[in-house]
């Protein structure tokens, strides 16, 4: 059982949360010409690291806030969680 620390509610069991995927993926800027490759990369391509991974979680059965978690994909250790507005780079 993972225990995930929601930045708003504190530590809760993983049953209350839904996963939201890689948080480092950046949508291309809309006010410029975006090449197809860039769109494809944004939509489909993932770094998929073994080790620290910055990812989105949703406290769906709790406060319903989205937040970011830095979690180790090899050990499942959750290193820290952050509010969406926190700029913490790519966590690696």
């Amino acid at each position: 059982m993972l225990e995930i620390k929601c930045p708003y509610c504190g530590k809760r069991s993983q049953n209350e949360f839904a996963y939201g995927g890689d948080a480092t993926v950046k949508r291309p800027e809309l006010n410029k010409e975006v090449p197809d490759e860039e769109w494809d990369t944004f939509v489909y391509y993932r770094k998929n690291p073994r080790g620290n991974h910055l990812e989105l979680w949703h406290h769906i059965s709790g406060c319903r806030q989205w937040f970011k978690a830095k979690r180790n994909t090899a050990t499942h250790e959750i290193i820290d969680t952050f509010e969406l507005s926190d700029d913490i780079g790519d966590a690696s």
Partner: protein
Amino acid sequence: MKKYSVFSLIKNALSHHQNWDVAWRDPEPKKEYEVIIIGGGGHGLATAYYLAKNFNIRNVAILEKGWIGGGNVGRNTTILRSNYMYNANNLFYEEGMKMWRNLSQELNYNVMYSPRNILNLAHSDAQMNAYSRRGNSMRLNGIDAQLLYREDIKKIIPFADFSSNCRFPIFGALRQPAGGTARHDAVAWGYARGADDLGVDIIQNCEVTGFDVNNGKIQGVQTSRGNIKTKKIGLCVAGSTSLLAEKLNMTLPIEAHVLQACVSEPIKPLLDQVVTFGAGHFYCSQSDKGEMVMGGDLDGYNSYAQRGNLPTIQHVLTEGVALFPNLSRLKILRTWGGIMDMSMDTSPIIDKTHIDGLYLNCGWCYGGFKATPVSGLTFAHTIAKDEVHELNAPFRLDRFHTGHLIDEKGIGTKTWIS
């Protein structure tokens, strides 16, 4: 290789089974190979086998980080089927089903192929319509499929919940009679023995640590047992694909996720079908040892851990008990996890790459086991001829740029909800 037969069994029984040949050698790596397959799982072993058998390329090595058959080929729930809707999947997996039918004879190794029906249960009118459409798609591609109704299902699995207060009543099912199971370890061992006999070197405990690439061409690999030269590399490493691709500065449309499965304590024969629960994600068959073999959802977060958490097991077994109430009194004997290479459209990738001599076989999600023979056949073709086979032509990497996705499940890029 000495052929296995009833006579060899009697002969070896008389000598107390002390004189059996080893099934495959344990060779030292040579300095150079014509083709190197990375990954000694089902797909890697099958690829090497067909390279030697169909294309007479015998100077081949399989490099395996651990031991052969220790990854997903030994961790799956052994289900075989070709009950897809899209033509690309139907034709590809059905070719695989044809190969399963005589694989034991082909390999002289009993893979225990058991065509025992796969029943995809439907729990609403809408689901019956969807299965009817899928069944028609299968039949148009020459695959037998039958739509069954509640009364038919009652005769086949009378111990399922047919009570009046059932939350998800069974409306019917799509049945593929050729669907079934095979003994997964035997598949790995059979292909290993067959490949070794044709001259393939199976090198275990040999981890690939880097690649030698010059002018966009593969020159060799660096391994924990020294550098080996080669012009062609086939990557068959499932969950570890992104890690090796990273060493080649490649990013792929793949995420690694952990999928768990479990078996109950062994019981007397109960279930002679493969059954999937349509109102959630639960599938079940009974092994020859009597264990109920069960699986379901991914844990749902990126993982390389080969182990999951209990909430998913609880969720899957809750569905199991909703379908078969009599499972509730069984004890779970063991659970385990494997790392799935989840592709972004839930379909595999078998292709060449922009690096000359590097070939990719990945993105199997959790459907890789049933494809072992046909994956090996088409990947061997792709490597040997340097062009894709017509069966894997739809499964190219560039579909994520051209938009020709094979999105069988229609879930978009949220691979973890499939």
